[in-house]
């Protein structure tokens, strides 16, 4: 990851030309809504990823980076819309510049153009989660479990894990299907072997016994093992004479069986079955609705089968696995009546298919005899009938379209085939009677050939079985392993989330939370003041939800990137958090992520002060946008320049603007000083606090602390400190008196009653000077940070600034 040193924005979004120096440190941008803060967030995201989340994703309609990325006046010149970042890559120890124009958003200019540097930017462009807006926070906290799982997995960069899971399942399902097919082939080959060997059981012992009977006749040694052996082993390699190549006895049996089986297709018992099945199919055919339902049901079942745990196999839409199965299952249930009819029809078709398969198998066995005879015998009708039967079996198995199944049940004209079989029988029968030895040899040759076919089918089946087992086992291990890993990750994230949330909510030290992963879902329950665990949106305020979102995001990022979590851009993410908790949020970011650069935006200037006084950002690491115009873009209000700005107003004799700015500025700085110095502000029932409340409270607090610091210095015998604090106290008292006794009259009524109109610039200048002098007492000249009281709880240890150049002890020496 990177840290941002500097950003230069040109003609981009609402910005015309703006340069900000971040110096690789946390930085904040404040300003009312519509002053261009988010333009900076967009610019950083665009420079690093080529995209602007605000203009893409769900509900963004026809917005696009190319059309709406440039400033509205530069829409026709997208090459002018450009963002340049100077960044530091800590892992490489390199300073790098990346520049990207809207016109060539996918081709940034990177200097130096090293492969390792490119890799860093490529990683960032694929995962732009370093930018977090309130919209994203809601995704983690308030989303439904399924959606949350997607969002969190995307943040954890685990989408690919789900892809792998889906692919492994697909491979496992395909392997199981392949196994079924090869099992069928092995069964058919086994039946053919048993037929030619005239055995009823397919075991090595039975096969060996049958083969050895023939081998004895031929004077061949008996085989003791079947594995890897040829049944005709020792028979010699010379092919037998043509006339004896057909095992006459077996061939006659098979041809006779073929005749019998084929004839059975015209017999009453078979035709009755066909009639019953046909009637059931006709019922379905007549009922158009049922027919359509069946087609749909078939589609739904295929969809369930092909579902890869991620996308619908029909339209590609992403689904949570459970939800997909539930919806498809409900649809199938609705088709129950049609399904029942279909199942009844399929039950009637099953014995018919069995008979047809039996006929096909025997025709396949006798068909080769035609070409083995000399002269060869015409078996074209047998072949044609075999093809027709194969097609009909497949059609009946598919069931739909229903008309095809009805057609497949129609009677076949088998006369020519039966004639061919009869002729074949005659020719085979006319073959010279073979000797017992010839019969034995033909037996062994034929049996060995079918044994080879069976072995090949068996080997295929064994391979398929192994593949299917491997695929299933691998998928199972993957599921168990990744589920366990995810559970572990969620446990760790959950633990850190709780720690972070407790850190910013000291009234919830017993706070508990639970992330509950299940297939495709991530439940999120949080404790509500010991009253039970509920979804975050149930009882917690928006402010608490925002804080939860931030804490969950930080826990996830910490888990993903560990020490490499260097940059986070937080776009107005804590708008609902009350001021009491903001300070804790600042402390959380500062103490738990000391090496992370946070770039924050807020519409609340007081937030900016919180960030500074809490030391999250340095005194000068923040800007405030005052307003925005389409022509000029945002205009900055750097608080260090407030005094110059007031002077500029006075130079133009605009006392009204100068007084308003002075009051506004003093109001929020004094409010912050009250918080920093634990000043006591008088409670107002209407909650409308202003400078009249804050200034005296802040001044009294500082006075009181200086007094305590003096006492402490006395107790420690530190005369130098005592003299220094006494001098400071005296000057401060004078400054306060100046403001509260004289100048106060100018600023207070001037704002509230518009009496400023009676004052001229020369009248007002001393007022400004007096307030500036007073303000300077509250900040450190070296670091620019506000003075604050350090100590835990009600304890006051010291009055100090962030750099500790000012550090007055408040503790008395124990006597």
């Amino acid at each position, binding site marked *: 990851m990177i840290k941002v040193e500097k950003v230069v924005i040109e003609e981009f979004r609402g910005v015309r030309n703006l340069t900000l120096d971040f110096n690789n440190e946390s930085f904040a941008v404040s300003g009312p809504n519509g002053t261009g803060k988010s333009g900076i967030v967009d610019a950083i995201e665009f420079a690093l990823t080529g995209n602007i989340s605000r203009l893409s994703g769900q509900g963004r309609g026809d917005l696009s980076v190319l059309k709406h990325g440039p400033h509205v006046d530069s829409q026709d010149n997208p090459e002018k819309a450009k963002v340049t970042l100077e960044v530091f890559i800590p892992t490489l120890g390199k300073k790098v510049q990346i520049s990207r124009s809207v016109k060539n958003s996918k081709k940034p200019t990177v200097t130096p153009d090293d492969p390792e540097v490119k890799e860093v930017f490529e990683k960032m462009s694929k995962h732009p989660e370093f930018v977090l807006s309130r919209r994203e926070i809601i995704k983690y906290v308030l989303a439904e479990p399924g959606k949350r799982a997607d969002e969190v997995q995307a943040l*954890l*960069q*685990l989408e*690919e*894990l789900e*892809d*792998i899971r889906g*692919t*492994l399942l*697909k*491979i496992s399902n395909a392997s199981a299907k392949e196994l079924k097919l090869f099992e069928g082939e092995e069964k058919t080959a086994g039946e053919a072997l048993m037929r030619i060997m005239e055995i009823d059981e397919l075991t090595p012992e039975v096969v060996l016994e049958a083969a050895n009977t023939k081998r004895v006749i031929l004077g061949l040694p008996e085989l003791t093992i079947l594995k890897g052996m040829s049944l005709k082993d020792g028979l010699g390699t010379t092919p037998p004479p043509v006339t004896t190549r057909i095992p006459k006895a077996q061939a006659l049996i098979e041809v006779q069986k073929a005749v019998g089986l084929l004839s059975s297709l015209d017999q009453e018992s078979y035709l009755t079955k066909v009639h019953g099945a046909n009637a059931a199919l006709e019922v379905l055919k007549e009922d158009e609705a049922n027919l359509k339902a069946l087609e749909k049901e078939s589609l739904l079942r295929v969809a369930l089968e092909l579902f890869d745990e991620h996308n619908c196999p029909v339209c590609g839409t992403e689904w949570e696995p459970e939800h997909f199965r539930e919806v498809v299952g409900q649809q199938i249930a609705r088709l129950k009546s049609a399904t029942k009819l279909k199942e009844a029809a399929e039950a009637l078709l099953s014995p018919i298919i069995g008979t047809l398969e039996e006929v096909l198998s025997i025709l396949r066995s006798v068909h080769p005899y035609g070409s083995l005879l000399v002269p060869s015998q015409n078996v074209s009708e047998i072949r044609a009938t075999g093809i027709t039967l194969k097609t009909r079996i497949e059609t009946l198995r598919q069931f739909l379209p229903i008309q095809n199944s009805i057609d497949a049940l129609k009677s076949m004209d088998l006369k020519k085939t039966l004639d061919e079989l009869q002729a074949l029988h005659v020719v085979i029968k006319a073959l010279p009677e073979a000797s017992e030895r010839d019969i034995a040899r033909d037996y062994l040759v034929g049996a060995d050939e079918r044994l080879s076919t069976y072995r090949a089918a068996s080997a295929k089946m064994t391979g398929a079985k192994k*593949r299917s087992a*491997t*695929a299933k*086992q*691998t998928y199972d*291990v*993957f599921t*168990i*392993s*990744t589920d*366990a*890993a*995810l559970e572990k*990750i969620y446990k760790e994230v959950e633990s850190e989330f709780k720690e972070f949330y407790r850190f910013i909510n000291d009234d919830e030290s017993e706070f508990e939370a639970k992330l509950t992963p299940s297939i495709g879902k991530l439940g999120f329950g949080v404790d509500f003041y010991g009253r039970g665990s509920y979804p975050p949106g149930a009882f917690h305020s928006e402010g608490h939800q925002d804080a939860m979102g931030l804490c969950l995001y930080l826990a996830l990022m910490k*888990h*993903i990137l*560990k020490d490499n979590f260097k940059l986070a851009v937080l776009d107005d993410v804590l708008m609902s958090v009350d001021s009491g908790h903001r300070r804790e949020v600042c402390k959380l970011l500062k103490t738990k992520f000391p090496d992370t650069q946070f770039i924050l935006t807020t519409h609340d200037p007081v937030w900016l002060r919180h960030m500074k006084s809490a030391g999250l950002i340095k005194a000068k690491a923040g800007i405030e946008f005052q307003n925005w115009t389409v022509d000029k873009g945002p205009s900055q209000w750097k608080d260090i320049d407030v005094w110059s700005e007031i002077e500029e107003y006075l130079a133009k004799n605009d006392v009204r603007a100068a007084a308003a700015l002075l009051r506004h500025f003093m109001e929020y700085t004094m409010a912050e000083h009250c918080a920093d110095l634990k000043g006591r502000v008088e409670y107002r029932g209407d909650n409308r606090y202003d400078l009249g409340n804050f200034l005296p409270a802040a001044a009294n607090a500082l006075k009181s602390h200086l007094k305590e610091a003096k006492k402490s210095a006395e107790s420690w015998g530190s005369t130098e400190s005592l003299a220094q604090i006494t001098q400071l106290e005296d000057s401060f008292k004078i400054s306060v008196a100046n403001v509260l006794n004289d100048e106060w009259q100018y600023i207070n009524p001037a704002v509230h009653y518009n009496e400023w109109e009676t004052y001229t610039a020369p009248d007002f200048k001393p007022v400004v000077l007096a307030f500036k002098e007073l303000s300077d007492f509250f900040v450190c000249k070296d670091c620019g940070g506000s003075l604050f009281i350090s100590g835990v709880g009600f304890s006051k240890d010291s009055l100090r600034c962030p750099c500790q150049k000012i550090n007055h002890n408040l503790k008395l020496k124990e006597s």
Partner: protein
Amino acid sequence: MKKTPIANHQETTVIERILGDFISDLQEKEELKLVSERLKVTLLDNIDFSEAALKEALFGKMS
């Protein structure tokens, strides 16, 4: 039994860590040792998650 980590957890992404653990779990199954070695190359070295690559890792080269 304690797993032998495949990947160095400090320098890898979350998915690499999870896939590393998966490969370790596979390795523990005697009959899947060879598959685990091929999957390690496919998933962690080549970072190829395609169906063709996974098939080859599961079943070995078909040709």
